C-alpha cells in the first residue's frame, strides 16, 4: 500500500514570526493521523505545507518523493470546503478527473460512485449553495477523493457544523475511510473528533509548533457515537485534553 507521509524537522516562518519549529511527523499508509493543538498554534499552516501550498525548510516526502508544490496525490479539504460555487455537484466531482484528461465514461463512473458514497445521488445537479453545510463538506471530501489521492489532508473539515451534524459526519467519514483506506492527516482542535477518527494522535505545542506527544488510539476503527460514553474513551479524552491545555 502506498501513501507513507514523512515530515522531518519542518520549519516555517512568516517574516520574523516562526510558526513551525522542527515538526517531525509520520503518517503510515492507510492510517488516520489526527493532529491536535491549541488554537493558533500553526495546525493549518502545517497542513498547507504538507499540501505543497507553502514553502518550508526541512523535508516532506510522500513514498520517498519530496513535496514541492501542490499535486493531486495530496488532496486537501479546506475548512471552508473547496467546491466551486458556479459548478453543479456533478461537475465539481468531475473537476479533478477531467483535469487529468480521463475518458468521459471513466469520469462518469467515478462521479456516480462518489455520489453514492456520499449519499448525494439526488443532488447531482444541485449547486453548492443549494446544499446544507454537512452535504457541502461531504461533497468537498468527495471532490478530492475523485482523484484517488494516496494522502488526504483535512483541515478542521467539520468545524463549522453543529454538534449533531458533526457527529453524523464523523461516523460517515470513519465508514468511508474504512471502506477506502487512505492515509489521512486530520487537523483539528476537537479532542473528541480526533479520538473518534484518528488511529494515532500527534499533539502540537503552542506557536511555534512542534510535536510534543504522540499516542495510539486503542479502539476499533469502527467507532460510533456509543463510544462517547465508554469509560476508557472518557478517560483518554480527559488525559488528551489536559495535555492540549498544558501545551
Amino acid at each position, binding site marked *: 500500500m502506498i501513501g507513507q507521509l514523512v515530515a522531518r524537522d519542518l520549519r516555517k516562518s512568516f517574516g520574523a514570526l516562526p510558526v513551525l519549529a522542527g515538526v517531525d511527523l509520520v503518517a503510515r499508509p492507510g492510517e488516520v493521523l489526527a493532529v491536535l493543538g491549541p488554537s493558533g498554534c500553526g495546525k493549518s499552516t502545517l497542513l498547507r505545507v504538507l499540501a505543497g501550498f507553502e514553502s518550508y525548510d526541512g523535508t516532506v516526502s510522500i513514498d520517498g518523493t519530496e513535496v514541492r508544490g501542490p499535486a*493531486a496525490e495530496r*488532496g486537501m479539504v479546506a475548512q471552508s470546503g473547496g467546491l466551486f460555487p458556479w459548478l453543479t455537484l456533478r461537475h465539481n466531482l468531475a473537476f479533478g478527473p477531467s483535469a487529468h484528461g480521463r475518458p468521459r465514461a471513466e469520469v462518469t463512473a467515478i462521479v456516480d460512485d462518489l455520489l453514492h458514497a456520499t449519499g448525494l445521488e439526488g443532488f447531482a445537479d444541485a449547486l453548492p449553495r*443549494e446544499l446544507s453545510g454537512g452535504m457541502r463538506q461531504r461533497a468537498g471530501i468527495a471532490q478530492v477523493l475523485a482523484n484517488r489521492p494516496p494522502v488526504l489532508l483535512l483541515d478542521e473539515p467539520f468545524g463549522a457544523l453543529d454538534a449533531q451534524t458533526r457527529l453524523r459526519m464523523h461516523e460517515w467519514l470513519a465508514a468511508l475511510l474504512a471502506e477506502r483506506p487512505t492515509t489521512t492527516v486530520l487537523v483539528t482542535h476537537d479532542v473528541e473528533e480526533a479520538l473518534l477518527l484518528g488511529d494515532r494522535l500527534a499533539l502540537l505545542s503552542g506557536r511555534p509548533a512542534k510535536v510534543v506527544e504522540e499516542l495510539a488510539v486503542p479502539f476499533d476503527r469502527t467507532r460510533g457515537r456509543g463510544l462517547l460514553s465508554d469509560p476508557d474513551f472518557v478517560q483518554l479524552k480527559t488525559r488528551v485534553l489536559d495535555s492540549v491545555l498544558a501545551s
Partner: protein
Amino acid sequence: MTLVDDTLLAPLPVAATGRRRSRRFVGLLFPLVLLGVWQLISSRELISTRLLPAPGTVAQAFGQFFFGDGAFALAGVVPFTGAGFDHLEASLGRCLVSWSLAVVVGTTVGLLLGLSSMARDLLDPLLNALRAVPLFAWLPLALVWFGIGEGAARALIFVGALWPVVVSVGDSTARVPRVHVETARMLGTPARALWRKVYLPSALPEVVTGLRLSLTLAWTCVIVGELTGTDRGVGAMMNAARETGRTEQVVVGIVVFAAVGLAFDLTLRRVARRWVAWAAT
C-alpha cells in the same frame, strides 16, 4: 455505503413575493404618470412648446421618423422623415462594433491586471489617469487621428465603453478566493488554464455587471461619437434637429435612445442570468 441526509437539505431560494410583483407594476406605471404631467403642462401652456413640445407632437414626429414618406432633410444633409430605421441601424452598428472591441480589449487588459501583480503595479497609475479623462476631452484628438466621421465616432464609443470592462474584470479576478485557485491547482489544473477554469467563472457576476454598464455607456457615447460630423445615426439626427430648432425631433431621439438602452440592458440581463444563476442570493 450511503448516508442520505435529507433533513440537512438547505431551503431553496424563495420566489419573488406578491408584494415585490406589485411594486414592479407600480414602477411600470411611473412613465405613464410622467406622460400625464407632461400633457398637462403642454395643454395649459405652462412652458413654451418650442422648449417642450406636446406629447402628441412628439408622437407625430416619431411616426414620421420611422414610417413617414418623403425625403425631408434636416440641416440640408441629415434626412429625417422615414429615415428612422436607417439612423437606428447606423447608431446600433457603431455602438455594437465598438463595444465588442472594448469587451475583447478590456477583458484582456483586466485579466492581465487581475492575475499579475507586476502588471497591476506597472499599469494601474497610467490606466487610472486615462480613465479620469472625460470623453469630450478625447473628441479633438479623435478628429485629428481618425478624421471627421465614422472612425472618430467609433473610437470615442470604444473609449467610453472600455473602462467599465477593464475595472470589473481586473478587480473581480484579483479578488477570486484563494481557496478556489488552490483547489483547482491541487486537483490538477495547469497554471495556464486557471484563468479559464477558475478566474473568469468566479469573477463572472461582477464581469456581467461591468458588461451591462459598459454597453449602456457605449450607447450613451454614440451621441458624442455622432457629433464628429457623421450624417447617419440617431445622434446625428438630434444634432441636426437642434440646429434647425425642431425640439420635437430632439425629443424623438431621446425616446429612441432610452428605448434602445432599456432593450440592451434587459437583453444582456436575460442572457447573463443563466451564466450567473449560481451567484443569486
